[in-house]
């Protein structure tokens, strides 16, 4: 049975449109559900005061600080490593056994369950390297975890920069590194930022690996060597242990808002950048 192309197109569009609608509906439902349950608790006071009685009452200030610090450490370590790897793979080598090994390594790393990262981080950073349960241990573990995401997305982004840009740059007397810095990276930036945002998302959202490496102390961290509890861990403990469902949803709502703000900022910066050049 062959349908005329026009009807195939309509059918395809309909099916995909419905799929999209369903997907968006589910995702929007989750956001609205969290916000609806969480927003009533949220306020400046909730955000900026210390928790009391294991989080049953009071706010989540130390948790917010812990989350930000942990994510920053993870991103600060993983971004240069990930983007550097992507640059090496696309710009500095040809397809060879080495690149295949590196890619395979990255893919495997992407598949490693967070719990294994947690165990590893606990044995290696916390115990052997004597960093203890700390933001640093947690950040390093998370950096390992988000590294493959950043490598993969940056690689795709860098690959999609047209070769002609590189040729022009070389023909104008640029070295490879200058070409990478001035032409390739700027053009690939939106894709790289997407990767980093995904990485931020994963670090903020991680629970298992964080509990084992950064611990779950509810106190305000005073240095990177202090233990800290992230918002996800806080949510998990509050919700699962049934300490306070309200504060759990409040924490989740703030998580959602935080990520929204980060994304908006990144998009704003990126759009300005793209508009300037195209």
């Amino acid at each position: 049975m062959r349908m005329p192309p026009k009807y195939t197109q309509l059918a395809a569009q309909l099916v995909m449109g419905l799929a999209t609608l369903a997907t968006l509906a589910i995702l929007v439902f989750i956001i609205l559900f969290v916000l609806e349950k969480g927003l009533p608790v949220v306020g400046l006071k909730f955000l900026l005061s210390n928790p009391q009685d294991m989080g049953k009452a009071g706010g989540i200030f130390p948790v917010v600080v812990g989350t930000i610090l942990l994510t920053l450490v993870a991103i600060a370590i993983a971004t240069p490593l990930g983007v550097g790897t992507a640059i090496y793979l696309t710009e500095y080598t040809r397809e060879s056994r080495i690149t295949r090994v590196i890619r395979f390594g990255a893919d495997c790393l992407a598949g490693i369950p967070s719990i294994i990262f947690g165990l590893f981080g606990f044995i290696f950073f916390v115990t052997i390297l004597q960093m203890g349960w700390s933001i640093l241990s947690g950040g390093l573990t998370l950096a390992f975890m988000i590294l493959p995401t950043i490598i993969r997305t940056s690689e795709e982004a860098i690959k999609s920069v047209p070769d002609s840009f590189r040729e022009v740059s070389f023909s104008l007397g640029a070295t490879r590194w200058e070409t990478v810095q001035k032409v390739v990276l700027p053009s690939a930036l939106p894709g790289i930022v997407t990767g980093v945002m995904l990485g931020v998302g994963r670090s903020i959202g991680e629970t298992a690996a964080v509990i084992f490496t950064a611990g779950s102390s509810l106190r305000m961290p005073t240095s990177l060597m202090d233990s800290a509890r992230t918002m996800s861990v806080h949510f998990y403990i509050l919700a699962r242990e049934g300490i306070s469902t309200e504060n759990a949803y409040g924490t989740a709502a703030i998580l959602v808002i935080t990520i929204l703000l980060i994304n908006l900022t990144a998009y704003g910066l990126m759009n300005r950048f793209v508009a300037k050049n195209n």
Partner: protein
Amino acid sequence: MNRRYLIGMSLMTAVLMLAGCGQKREAVIMAGSTAFQPFAEKLADQFMVQNPGINVTVQGGGSAVGIQSALSRTAQIGMADLLQLPEEAKNLTATEVARDGIAIVVNPGNKVEGLTVQQVREIFNGVINNWKQVGGDDRPITVVSREAGSGTRTSFEQIVGDISLAREALIQDSNGTIRETVANDANAIGYLSHGLINEKIKPVKLDGVECTTEEVVCGKYLLVRPVFLLTQGQPEGAVKQVIDYMLSAEGQETIKNSGLIPVK
């Protein structure tokens, strides 16, 4: 971009170095049993009000983490709530600071008020699988247990005896999740720390004895397990101060008020 990055890195290094030198307060880290963690946090807070020079941090992870971290000195005090400590822990000094009753709980909508030890055994073994067999409605039983190795589960199984858990049993990894699962499922039965009973679930009598602090202290209630603090060698210095505080009248009073059973 590179320069900014370098500056960022150097700043971070600087912060790390400061962090290394800046800590003048004596630090005590406690880690282990998730069941005892909330109580330890509360006790630590009270302790630090009286001893501002000592910083006590409490981490979870589970009893095994408590033993591991005490052995590796990642934590000065390990917390374990096992009835019998494993081989690895025999070089550690164990101090019992509290006891904990294990309550058998069902959904508040359940008619059943009490069970015998034999009935509990058969329910968890899967021999009894409908509530009508123990005087309830005609509904299947959803058994909810803890993960293998859990202090609560080990103690529960050892005291009840002869339990080979039904394959269908749902497994939850903490007291809180057992409580939530039983609260959400009308057919469920589970067991949890006596201190965590609330209005969302209903404890049942075991052989006619209610799970209350009084019954536990006078030894009538059967399901009880100890909470140990583990240290390398005899506790001394700040570590001793922390443990002594927990054993003091005030500490034990807090333990009692929080729902655990004091040892003294």
